[in-house]
C-alpha cells in the first residue's frame, strides 16, 4: 500500500531535511575512509604537528606557559572554523543538485547542513584537544568558557556567511573558485595562527587587526590560557563582520534563488 505523506509544520519539515542532509554529509565524508570519523581529529592534528615541528623551534619565544603545539592548535582550529564552511559552501549546490528535485529540499538547505557539519566536527575536535591539553597538564582556565565558545561561534558564522555568498557566486562564475582558493593561502600568516599578535611590530599590528580572525583567535587564547594576555582585541568587531557577511550571503541567495534550482 502506498504511504500517505503526513503534513508537517514548516519547522519540523525543515529539521527533517537538515537532518537527512547532515546524514548524507556523514556518509559521503567518512564513508570512503577506513578510519572514518577518526579523520576529524587526525586531520588537524597532523597538520598542526607538521607545522609545529617546522615552526616551533623558529618561533617559540615564550608565550606564557602554553606549549607551542597547543598555541598553534588553538589558532588552527579557529581558522578551520572559517575555511571549513567556506570550502564546504563552494560545492554545496553542485554536489546536491540531484536532491533539489524534492520540493522540501531548497538550495539553502545543503548549505546549512554543510555548515552545521563543519561546526560539529571541528568543535568536537577542539573539545578533544582541550581535554588532551588539560590532561597533559597545560594550565587552562574554564572561567571564560562562554567567551571561548563565542569565539568559536563567531568564526564559524563568518565562515558560513562567506561560504554561502562565495558558494553562490562561484556557482555562477566558475573561475572565481580558483581565486577563492588562492585568497585562502595567506590566511595562515595574517590571522595570528602561527604567531602571537604582540610578536608583530606595532606599526603593522593596526593592519592585522582589520582581520576579524585575529580577534577571535587571540581572544580565544586569552580565554583558555590564563597566562596569555593580549591587548587591542575584542569580540564586537568579529560579531559585526559575522552579521555583515551573513546578511550579504542571504541577499545573494535571495537574488539567485532561480538560478540555483536550475539544472
Amino acid at each position: 500500500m502506498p504511504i500517505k505523506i503526513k503534513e508537517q509544520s514548516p519547522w519540523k519539515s525543515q529539521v527533517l531535511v537538515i537532518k537527512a542532509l547532515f546524514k548524507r554529509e556523514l556518509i559521503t565524508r567518512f564513508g570512503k575512509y577506513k578510519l572514518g570519523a577518526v579523520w576529524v581529529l587526525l586531520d588537524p592534528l597532523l597538520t598542526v604537528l607538521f607545522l609545529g615541528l617546522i615552526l616551533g623551534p623558529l618561533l617559540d619565544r615564550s608565550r606564557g606557559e602554553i606549549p607551542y603545539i597547543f598555541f598553534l592548535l588553538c589558532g588552527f582550529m579557529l581558522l578551520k572554523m572559517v575555511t571549513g564552511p567556506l570550502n564546504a559552501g563552494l560545492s554545496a549546490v553542485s554536489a546536491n543538485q540531484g536532491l533539489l528535485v524534492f520540493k522540501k529540499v531548497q538550495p539553502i538547505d545543503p548549505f546549512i547542513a554543510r555548515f552545521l557539519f563543519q561546526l560539529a566536527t571541528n568543535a568536537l575536535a577542539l573539545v578533544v584537544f582541550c581535554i588532551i591539553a588539560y590532561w597533559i597538564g597545560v594550565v587552562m582556565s574554564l572561567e571564560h568558557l562562554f567567551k571561548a565558545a563565542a569565539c568559536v561561534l563567531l568564526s564559524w558564522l563568518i565562515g558560513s556567511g562567506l561560504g554561502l555568498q562565495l558558494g553562490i557566486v562561484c556557482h555562477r562564475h566558475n573561475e572565481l573558485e580558483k581565486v577563492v582558493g588562492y585568497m585562502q593561502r595567506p590566511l595562515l600568516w595574517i590571522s595570528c595562527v602561527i604567531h602571537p599578535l604582540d610578536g608583530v611590530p606595532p606599526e603593522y599590528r593596526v593592519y592585522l587587526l582589520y582581520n576579524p580572525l585575529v580577534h577571535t583567535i587571540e581572544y580565544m587564547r586569552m580565554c583558555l590560557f590564563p597566562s596569555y594576555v593580549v591587548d587591542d582585541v575584542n569580540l564586537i568587531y568579529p560579531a559585526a563582520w559575522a552579521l555583515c557577511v551573513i546578511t550579504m550571503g542571504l541577499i545573494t541567495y535571495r537574488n539567485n534563488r532561480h538560478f540555483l534550482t536550475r539544472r
Partner: protein
Amino acid sequence: MISLNNVTKYYPMRDGERHYVLRNVSLDIPSHRSIAILGPNGAGKSTLLRLIGGAEAPNEGSITTEADISWPIGLSSGFQSSMTGRQNINFACQINGLSKAETQQVIDDILDFSELGEYFDMPIKSYSSGMRARLGFGLSINFDFDYYLIDELTAVGDIIFKEKAKKEFKKISEKSSLIFASHSLKSLRESCQSAIFLHDGNLEYFEDVDDGIRAYESYIEKKSGTAPKKVARKAAKKTAKKAAKKAAKKAARKAARKAIRRATKKATKNNPNNKNEK
C-alpha cells in the same frame, strides 16, 4: 486541481537574452484525469513538470494547488550519485517524515519492484539509466500522491520494466492522475485522457488526448515543411495515384463481372419465374 496563474518562466541565455519557456500562462489542470504533456524537444516539458512539482519556482505568477504532487520522476530524479540506492531511499523517506518501520516497508517493496539485487547497495553513479528509472519509479509509487509527474521515464526501460510501468500507470490512474511527458505518442495515448500541448511559451489544453496529439503533429508538420519532406510527400502522392488507378481498374473489373453475373442470373430467373407465376 492545479492552477497556473499568469506564470512566466524564462532562462537567461549567454548573450543576455531570455529564453521563455512559459509566457504569462494561466491554466487550470483538472484532477482525476491523466494528462499527456506534448511538445517538441527543448520546448520545456521537463521544466513545466519541475514547476508543477515545486522543484523550481516561476519567475512571475504562481502555481497553487491543494493536491499532493510528486517530485518529477525521471532519469535524474532525486538521487545523489555518490550515495547507494539504499541511502538515497533512506534520504527520501527521512525528509518525508516516515518512521523506521515504514521506511523498511518501502525498501522491501522497492527491492521487489526494481529487481536491483546487489546493485541496491552500490553508488547510483554505477547504475545504468534503466536501473535509475526503476529505482526512481519504484520509490515514487510507494507514496500516495494525487498527481504523479512522469518525465520520459519509460523511454529507457527494457520490456519487463515497460510492462510493469504500464501496470502501475493503470493502478495509479484509478485513484490519482498522471502528468506524463513523453515522446512516445503510443504510451501517451495508452495512459492519458487529456493533453497539454506546450510550444513557444504557450500551453494549450485538450480535453481529448487524440485532439492534442493531432494538434502536436500538425504543428510539427508545419514547422518541418522542408524540402526532403516535400519530395517524400510527392513520392507518396505518386504511389497513391498509382494505387488508386490500380484499385479503380480492379473495381471496374469487379463491377463488370458483377454486372455480367447479375444479368445472367436475371435471365435465368426471369424465364422460370414467369412460367411459375402464370
